[in-house]
């Protein structure tokens, strides 16, 4: 093995082992920052030694043993220090110091619980959303600071700063390393799901930059979702989110044209949809629906995504059902964005005039003021109604609001099409083939 091959192998081992390593060490030292440092030290040791000695047969165990030694050294030093303090007559809180024999047992104990605790600590409410995302990708996804920075188009020092600050915040707030119980568990799970879905969405339709999709980020989110589903298999919404992500990810190939331009759902070549992921998504959805008769927000969205997945052609889409599902979702978690999607579904089911009525009500909504999809949807409905001049204005406005270069291109093209030679379409015809039912 050449040195670079060894480095790649070490990186792979790190991806597989780092979360478990950090989780186990955190339980031991009660400090996620210190745990990560210890794990990183073990990684550095591997990088130094393996190119000479070769990759050991059980690299995970090697890293664990190496990190454990360091942890024990740390604890001994701490205990010595505490003893010193006591000798000096300081009144110290009697901290239950672990004896070295307990350490082995402590670190080898139920890996799943440790991982779950790590999930909850990296998505803890004391942290900002950005910090949660960075910390989760770093500690659970095994991504490097550089990879996270690249994914979110932020400078690497910014991400590094976020992570350092997040770890400090957790330490200062004395956030316990535990799985929350009862009603708090549900609230915390939904905070975790939010982080994972945020990562997925950033990959699925990038908010900024030159690429419309970043599939690698979707894969990371999906992996985190699947891991979480294994850790809390009884939570229906976890399966709902996994279902939603699997089905959306099934369309990644069809979502981008040959020159990188976005292709909207109804224009996609369905032959390019990944049937394996659709199948996985549908079974995760079934699982979620079996676990709870009432759908949560993710399960609702997964059910909508499933409607599209089940339609063999865009024309066969069951729009009335989708509109009904959006109505249910809007009742459960009212949001202007969901209303916008509902308007789109209603217009597909019952004609653009009905949709436009709803969209017009949303134009005053403060939270949608900078949201490019509002003018984009409105432009589409106006276009269908034959009001081309107004439609053009809306597409132009949408183009000026998006920060994604690819999306801007498509919107400007649509604006130009309004001016050029409006298609001889009968206005207000029932469901037609094209509409920006993008996202969810």
């Amino acid at each position, binding site marked *: 093995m050449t040195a670079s091959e060894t480095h790649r192998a070490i*990186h*792979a081992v790190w991806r597989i082992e780092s979360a478990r390593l950090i989780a186990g060490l955190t339980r031991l030292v009660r400090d996620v920052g210190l745990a990560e440092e210890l794990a990183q030290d073990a990684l550095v040791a591997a990088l130094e030694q393996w190119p000479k000695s070769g990759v050991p047969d059980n690299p995970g165990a090697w890293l664990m043993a190496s990190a454990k030694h360091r942890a024990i050294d740390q604890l001994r030093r701490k205990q010595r220090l505490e003893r010193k303090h006591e000798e000096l007559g300081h009144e110290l809180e009697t901290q239950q110091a672990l004896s070295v024999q307990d350490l082995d047992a402590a670190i080898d104990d139920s890996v799943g619980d440790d991982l779950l605790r790590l999930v909850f600590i990296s998505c803890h409410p004391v942290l900002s959303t950005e910090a949660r995302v960075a910390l989760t990708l770093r500690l659970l996804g095994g991504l490097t600071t550089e990879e996270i920075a690249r994914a979110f188009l932020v400078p690497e020092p910014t991400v590094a700063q976020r992570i350092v600050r997040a770890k400090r915040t957790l330490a200062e707030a004395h956030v316990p390393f535990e799985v929350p119980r009862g009603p708090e568990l549900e609230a915390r799970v939904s905070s975790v799901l939010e982080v994972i879905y945020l990562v997925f969405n950033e990959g699925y339709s990038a908010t900024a930059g030159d690429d419309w999709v970043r599939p690698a980020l979707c*894969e990371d989110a999906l992996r985190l979702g699947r*891991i979480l589903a*294994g850790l809390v298999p009884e939570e229906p919404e976890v399966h709902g989110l996994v279902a939603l992500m699997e089905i959306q990810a099934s369309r990644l190939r069809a979502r981008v044209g040959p020159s990188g331009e976005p292709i909207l759902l109804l224009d996609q070549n369905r032959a390019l949809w990944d049937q*394996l992921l659709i199948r996985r998504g549908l079974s995760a959805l079934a699982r979620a629906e079996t676990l709870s008769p009432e759908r949560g927000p993710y399960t609702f969205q997964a059910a909508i995504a499933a409607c599209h997945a089940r339609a063999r052609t865009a024309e066969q889409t069951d729009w009335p059902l989708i509109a009904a599902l959006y109505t249910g979702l809007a009742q459960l978690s009212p949001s202007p964005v969901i209303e916008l999607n509902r308007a789109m579904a209603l217009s597909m089911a019952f004609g653009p005039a009905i949709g436009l009525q709803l969209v017009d009500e949303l134009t005053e909504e403060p939270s949608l003021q900078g949201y490019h999809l509002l003018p984009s949807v409105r432009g589409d409905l106006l276009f269908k109604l034959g009001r081309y001049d107004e439609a053009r204005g809306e597409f132009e406005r949408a183009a000026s609001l998006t920060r994604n270069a690819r999306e801007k291109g498509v919107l400007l093209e649509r604006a130009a099409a309004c001016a050029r030679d409006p298609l001889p379409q009968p206005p207000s015809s029932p469901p037609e083939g094209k509409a920006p039912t993008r996202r969810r």
Partner: protein
Amino acid sequence: MKFMVLVKATKESEAGTMPSEEMLTAMMKYNEELVKAGIMLAGEGLHPSSKGARIRFSGPKRTVIDGPFAETKELVAGFWLWQVKSKEEAIEWLKRCPNPMNEDSEIELRQVFDAEDFAASDPTGEVRRKEEELRALTESRRG
């Protein structure tokens, strides 16, 4: 990226010998790990080639050949489909797999094509565009 992981057949697997309970348990544990790590997309075991068939293509001619097939080591006895970050990661996972057979055996790793992989043979996107046009044509006829 996706990898197809091919478990190669052995004399025993071709003879239709079922795995021992011990091995089944070991494999189940391994599969569980793969699922929990979020990398396993699919996986199945295959009946021996004696129950399979081949179709040989030669110009317009099609010939059906019934199994079993002779080249045991080249046959596939099972497969997984994994989604991993790199080939190295797939190799790391594979090294943790229990020997799937009672005798010496081999598992092969093959990367699955992605849309981007075709970019080289379709640099202008012409093939894809044609495909879209064809689809539009079929739909306009239907409509």
